[in-house]
C-alpha cells in the first residue's frame, strides 16, 4: 500500500485505461489526471529509438570502432524478458558517442551492465585566483543531446617488475629498478629505473640519461633528457618512422594494431622549467600520438604520446595502453541535467576547469555569460573507485563543450570545458 490513497486510486485508474476496463472508485480529478495515460500509452521505448538510430547511422562510432572484438554487455534492463532483447543492446551502442549534441532527452538511469559508473574526478586543477564572478550558462538552441552512449571496460595489461625491466632493457635504460609500493603514488605500485627524474636540463649541454617509470595502473613515462630541445623538428616521415620503431621495440601495445598521427606543435616546451628565454628561436620536437585503430581522435583513451627530435630520437613518451573487452549502453544526462550540472560544477570562474583557451581577458571578479557553442561526447578513463588505482578501468562518457565567454555583451574568451555525462544528479 502507498501512504497516499490518491496514488493508489490514480494507479487503479491508469490500469483501467491501459486495460480498457472500468475506472471505478476514482474521483473526477483523479480520472482527469489518469486520462494522460491515453496519450502516454504506446510511447516510444528508448530501446527502439536507439536501435533505429544505430540502423540509420551505423558509421557513427568513434571510440574504439573496431568493436567486433568486444563483448557487448546488455544491461539488466535490456536483458529483461521484454520483447526487445540482446539484439537491441548490440544495436543501441552507436549513436551517442559522436553526436554533437544539441538537446534531446535522456530517459534516466536504470542500472546498466557495469552498474553505476564511477564519475571522473571533477577537481579543478588550477583554480582561477579571485574567480568570484558567477557564470551563467546558456546552451545553443541547435544542440541536441543524445539519449545514451556506450561506456567501455578496458582490460589493463598486467604491470610486473619483470615486464617493466624487459621494456627498460629494450629501450637501453640501465640501472637498478626501484620499487615504490608505499601506495603513495598515483597509480598503485611504481617502478623506476634510470636517471633521477628530478634532473631537468634546460640546455643541450646538460644530460641526465634516459629513465623509465611505470605504474601498475598501466601508465608509463619515458624520458631521455639528453636530447631535450637539441635539434630542429624532424620531418613527418622521420617522426612517424621513429615512433613506430620505438613502440614496436617496447611492445607496449601488446601487438594490438595502432595508428600514428602527427600532432600540432606545442606552443611551449613541455617541461615548465625548460621554457627558453627566446621561445621563437627554439626548435620544438615533433609530437606523435599512437592510438588503437579506429579511435579517430584523441579521446582520453589508450594512447601513447611521443616527442621526437630532428635526429629521429624519441626524447620522451608517455601514456597507457589497454584493450577494451566490453561495452554497455548508458543513458546520459539530458539538457536540463546538463544545465544543472554546469551551474553546480562550473558556476563561478574559480570552478571553471578550462582545458583549452585563455580566460585572462575576462574580469574574473565579475559575472559573465558562458554560451555553449557545441557539445560533444568524449571519454575519460576512471577506475571503479573513481581514482587512478590499478586494475579495472572504464572509459566513461563526458560532455566536452566549446564555450564563448561573454561580458558586457561582448565575447571576451573562448575555451573548452567538460562535465560528467553519467552518474548522480548534482
Amino acid at each position, binding site marked *: 500500500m502507498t501512504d497516499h490513497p490518491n496514488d493508489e486510486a490514480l494507479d487503479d485508474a491508469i490500469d483501467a485505461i491501459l486495460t480498457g476496463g472500468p475506472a471505478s472508485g476514482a474521483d473526477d480529478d483523479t480520472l482527469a489526471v489518469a486520462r494522460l495515460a491515453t496519450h502516454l500509452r504506446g510511447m516510444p521505448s528508448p530501446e527502439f529509438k536507439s536501435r533505429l538510430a544505430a540502423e540509420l547511422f551505423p558509421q557513427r562510432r568513434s571510440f574504439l570502432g573496431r568493436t567486433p572484438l568486444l563483448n557487448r554487455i546488455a544491461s539488466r534492463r535490456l536483458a529483461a524478458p521484454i520483447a526487445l532483447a540482446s539484439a537491441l543492446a548490440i544495436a543501441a551502442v552507436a549513436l551517442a558517442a559522436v553526436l554533437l549534441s544539441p538537446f534531446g532527452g535522456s*530517459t534516466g538511469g536504470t542500472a546498466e551492465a557495469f552498474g553505476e559508473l564511477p564519475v571522473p574526478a571533477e577537481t579543478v586543477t588550477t583554480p582561477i585566483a579571485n574567480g568570484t564572478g558567477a557564470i551563467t550558462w546558456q546552451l545553443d538552441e541547435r544542440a541536441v543531446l543524445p539519449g545514451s552512449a556506450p561506456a567501455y571496460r578496458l582490460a589493463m595489461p598486467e604491470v610486473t617488475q619483470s615486464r617493466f625491466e624487459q621494456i627498460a632493457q629494450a629501450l637501453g635504460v640501465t640501472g637498478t629498478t626501484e620499487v615504490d609500493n608505499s601506495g603513495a603514488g598515483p597509480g598503485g605500485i611504481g617502478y623506476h629505473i634510470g636517471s633521477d627524474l628530478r634532473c631537468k636540463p634546460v640546455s643541450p649541454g646538460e644530460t641526465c640519461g634516459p629513465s623509465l617509470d611505470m605504474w601498475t595502473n598501466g601508465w608509463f613515462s619515458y624520458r631521455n633528457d639528453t636530447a631535450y630541445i637539441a635539434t630542429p623538428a624532424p620531418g613527418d616521415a622521420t617522426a612517424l618512422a621513429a615512433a613506430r620503431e620505438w613502440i614496436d621495440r617496447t611492445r607496449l601495445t601488446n601487438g594490438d594494431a595502432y595508428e600514428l598521427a602527427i600532432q600540432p606543435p606545442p606552443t611551449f616546451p613541455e617541461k615548465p622549467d625548460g621554457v627558453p628565454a627566446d621561445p621563437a628561436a627554439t626548435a620544438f620536437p615533433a609530437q606523435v600520438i599512437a592510438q588503437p585503430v579506429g579511435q579517430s581522435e584523441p579521446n582520453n583513451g589508450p594512447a601513447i604520446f611521443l616527442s621526437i627530435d630532428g635526429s629521429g630520437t624519441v626524447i620522451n613518451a608517455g601514456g597507457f595502453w589497454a584493450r577494451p573487452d566490453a561495452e554497455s549502453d548508458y543513458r546520459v544526462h539530458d539538457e536540463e541535467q546538463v544545465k544543472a550540472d554546469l551551474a553546480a560544477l562550473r558556476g563561478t570562474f574559480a570552478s571553471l576547469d578550462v582545458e583549452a583557451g585563455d580566460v585572462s581577458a575576462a574580469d574574473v571578479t565579475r559575472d559573465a555569460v558562458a554560451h555553449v557553442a557545441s557539445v560533444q561526447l568524449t571519454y575519460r578513463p576512471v577506475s571503479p573507485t573513481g581514482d587512478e588505482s590499478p586494475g579495472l578501468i572504464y572509459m566513461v562518457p563526458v560532455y566536452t563543450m566549446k564555450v564563448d565567454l561573454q561580458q558586457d555583451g561582448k565575447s571576451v574568451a573562448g575555451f573548452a570545458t567538460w562535465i560528467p555525462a553519467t552518474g548522480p544528479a548534482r
Partner: protein
Amino acid sequence: MLTARQLAAERRLIEASKQQAPNFARLYERYFDRVYAFALTRTGDRTSAEDVTAETFRVAFQNISRFEWRGVPFSAWLFRIAANAAADLHKRAAREAALGERADEAAEPWDLRFIEAEERARLFELVQRLPAAQRNVIVMRFGEEKSIKQIARAIGRSEGAVKKLQARAFRTLRAWLEESND
C-alpha cells in the same frame, strides 16, 4: 509554430545534413518524438508505429539531399513521408486480412487526429523534462510496458514508492500541459 530564428536554425541543420550524412542524427533527435507520435496516432499500436517511424526516417535519410528548403518546417516533409508509410501499411494490412479497424481509422477526419498527434508528441517531450526518478517510472511503465511490480524490482524501490513517483509525474505533466494551454 516555429519562430523565424528556429526556422533558420533548422535550415542550417538540414544543410549540414546534406553535406555530411552523420549530421542527420541531430534531425533524428529533434523529430523522433513527433514522428513517432504521428505514427502512433495514425496506426493505433506500438508495432505499427515503430514500423512507420523507422520507414519515415529511412526514406528521409536516403532523400535528404533532395529536400528543397522552401520555408516550410522540415517536420511537414517528415509527416508526409510518415503518412505515406502509414497508408502503405494500411494497404498491406488490408491485403493480408479483411478490412478491419485500421481501415476504419484511416477514414476518420485526419485534421482532428493531427491535433491529437501533436498533443501526444508534446506529452512525450514533457516526459523528458521530468525529474529523473519520475521520468524513469513513466518510461518503464508506458515505453517499456512494465508493471508497477517490475518497475519496483528494477529500480529497487517499493511498489508504493513507484506509484507515488508515477502520481507525481502525472500531476506535474498535467500542470505543465495546463500552463502551455493557457
